[in-house]
């Protein structure tokens, strides 16, 4: 019988899931909401892990919650943003503003990746899954995860370090430096 997810261990994964969510959606505020919604889903009823470990399971739920949110958003009527809404800034980490800025740039760069690349990078490099676990969580072959991951890393590094090359050829914006 598959083991049950132990709710008592879940809070230990909040930091990692928050970073994953930030990289998925590009906004620390949306990331908070995405993580909370993910936990609401997970805790709604007892869960069986069915071969996943906890992190892989949470990654799967996070991915599904993220994709659901994007589908919901795409169906919603568009509203005109007010000036106040456009001026939203990241207000956290005021004790280390430079690092907060760097984090925002890095996670924005990841969030700009095509969805498949982004999910692969988040699953492996941020959540810490193996290629095989990531493949199962994302319903993709391990070889596919490997390819997506290489390309995703190349694009992010090029974006952050301002390199020419594949990033430019594949249509991304010019690179920027964090420092």
């Amino acid at each position: 019988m598959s083991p049950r997810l132990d709710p008592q261990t879940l809070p230990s994964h909040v930091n990692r899931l928050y970073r994953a969510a930030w990289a998925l959606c590009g906004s620390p505020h949306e990331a908070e909401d995405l993580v909370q919604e993910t936990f609401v889903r997970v805790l709604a009823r007892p869960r069986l892990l069915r071969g996943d470990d906890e992190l892989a399971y949470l990654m799967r739920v996070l991915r599904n919650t993220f994709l659901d949110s994007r589908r919901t958003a795409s169906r919603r009527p568009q509203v005109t943003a007010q000036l106040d809404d456009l001026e939203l800034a990241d207000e956290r980490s005021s004790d280390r503003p430079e690092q907060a800025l760097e984090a925002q740039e890095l996670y924005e760069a990841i969030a700009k990746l095509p969805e498949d690349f982004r999910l692969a990078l988040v699953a492996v490099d941020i959540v810490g899954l193996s290629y095989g676990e990531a493949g199962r969580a994302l319903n993709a072959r391990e070889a596919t995860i490997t390819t997506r991951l290489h390309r995703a890393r190349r694009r992010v590094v090029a974006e952050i370090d301002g390199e020419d090359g594949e990033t430019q050829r594949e249509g991304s914006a010019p690179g920027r430096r964090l420092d």
Partner: protein
Amino acid sequence: MSEHPDPARVSADEQRLGELLRAVEAPAPAPLRARIAELNAGAPSRRRLRMPALAFGGAFAAAALAAVALALVLSGTSAPTALRTAELALAQPRASAPQTLVATGTDIPFPDWAAQGWPRAGLRRDSLDGRQVTTEFYSSSSGTIGYAIVSGAPLQFGAGGSTVVRAAGDYRLMRSGGAAVVAWVQQGHTCVLASRTASPATLLDLAVLQDSASTVSTQRGWRSLPQATVSRV
């Protein structure tokens, strides 16, 4: 990209991305950890905590408005709620702010948050279904916070939002039309902080500061926020 990427390039990219990710610490904000801990604490509060995701901001705002509208229809009255009070806290000031100000119909003084980066910026007084609402505004270089205090008995917080428990009391975190709202009861009156630019964490820090300072000691003046928890926009 070629079918067979340069192994050295692949390895270098993996190493570089690892460096970048390790260089930026991004721990989950304290309010989020608190909400998760509360969600995890058990079923009794789970329904209450089930806040529609803010990532779907427009949907949440619409849902919140719909919930308010539904509550009004069902009640048959336009009973004031924390979210209706938040509308006043998000409105424009009508007068300049005095040096000291006590909310009408209460004994609650408005705090001086200049040391926290939010000096007084204005004042308005409104009547909300027979309640007196006094709102003081605080501004920084990039935004405004409204702090409304409602006379009379505590208001309904309304549907939606999540409750964060601190030593000084419970605080309801909500969203309204893209704005962050924190509501709590202080000295028997509803207090509401709202802002379109400040984060929920900032509002929560200020609310806890105000609540703690008024309940623990009115003699020692306002404490400074710990630097690590001060968020400025």
